[in-house]
């Protein structure tokens, strides 16, 4: 769909805020280099998906500042399997829900130039795995690569400031999110889910 005055988002300014250092962060174990988020298992049957694990996402719908009202839900999907200790804890295609945090004021009043989407959680296996954005996002100025570039979510969401009439994100646009807090899975839970094709 094309429209005069519409252009793909241009992340001229991406809001980035330093995540406040919490006391537990300094004591947190280092992430394994393979990014698996694995915790040494020891004698436990539990598999822990650690907070901070990167989650590759993709937008499952288009979002436009002209049409998306603040508070509206946004559909995304997990783009790649999330693995812990070589087990798939969250399969690719799992549903992710976000929220429009900046867009139209409400259904009646439209034409906002600004668009911000926060990514909230993954809904999978009856659980809600909370997600958050990365610590810092470097501003990108190359409009040409912007549409193919990965969007990182700032802590309050992805902010796109536009000088034209509308900001939008196409369905299929990739994005990154991060697991917000540790999530525990049991091996039996994952095995049974794998068996039923969950």
């Amino acid at each position, binding site marked *: *769909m094309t429209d005069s005055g519409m252009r793909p988002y241009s992340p001229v300014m991406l809001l980035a805020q330093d995540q406040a250092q919490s006391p537990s962060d300094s004591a947190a174990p280092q992430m394994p280099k393979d990014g698996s988020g694995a915790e040494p298992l020891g004698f436990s049957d539990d598999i822990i998906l650690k907070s901070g694990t990167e989650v590759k996402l993709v937008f*499952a*719908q*288009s*979002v*436009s500042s*002209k*049409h*998306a*009202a603040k508070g*509206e*839900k*946004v*559909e995304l999907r997990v783009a790649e399997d999330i693995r812990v200790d070589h087990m798939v804890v969250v399969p690719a*295609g799992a*549903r992710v*829900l976000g929220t429009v945090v900046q867009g139209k004021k409400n*259904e*009646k009043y*439209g034409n906002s130039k600004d668009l911000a989407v926060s990514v909230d959680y993954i*809904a999978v296996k009856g659980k809600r795995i909370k997600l958050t954005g990365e610590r810092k996002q470097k501003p990108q100025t190359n409009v040409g690569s912007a549409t193919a570039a990965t969007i990182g979510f700032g802590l309050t969401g992805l902010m796109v400031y536009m000088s034209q009439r509308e900001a939008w994100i196409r*369905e299929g646009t990739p994005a990154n999110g991060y697991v917000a807090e540790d999530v525990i899975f049991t091996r039996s839970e994952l095995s049974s889910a794998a068996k039923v094709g969950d």
Partner: protein
Amino acid sequence: MMRNGILGTLLMVSFVFAQQKAVDTATAGVKGVYLILFRTPAHVRSSSPEVFHTAAADVRKVLTDGKVPIVEDKERGSIENESQMSVNSMTKLASEAGAGSLLFVTVDRPTSKWIKLVLQAYDLDGKLLWEEAVDSGMSAMSGGAGYKKCFEKLKKQLSARIGGPGLPVQMQ
């Protein structure tokens, strides 16, 4: 004679139970329809959200009156918005919600009509099962009259589809 009467009664009772089981099985096997409504930019420009939500409610009413089970999204309830989503994304949501089909309704406001509804039923593979379009026509003098005319057409055309592909009926 008494023996024949008892035998007859027993046969009747087993027949009734068998019928009930068949109905239960049929009901249990019926997967509902997942409903998504989309409001076009033209409708946003020239009409109101109330008209959109009224149309959504009326579509639901026609379906529920026809005993078509509507599957609610566990996370969001129903989806009624202005954001575009591909058929693939929508059918995926329908499948995850446990529905057997998707009914996608587009609410539009063409320049020459007060309102237009396009109803498209899809199976979970994304195949279009059928499509119906209803509108207010050109003779209505006001939005209210136009909507009423559209709704009459909607009731007639949608009701004719109930029980067919994409709109299963719940027996009980």
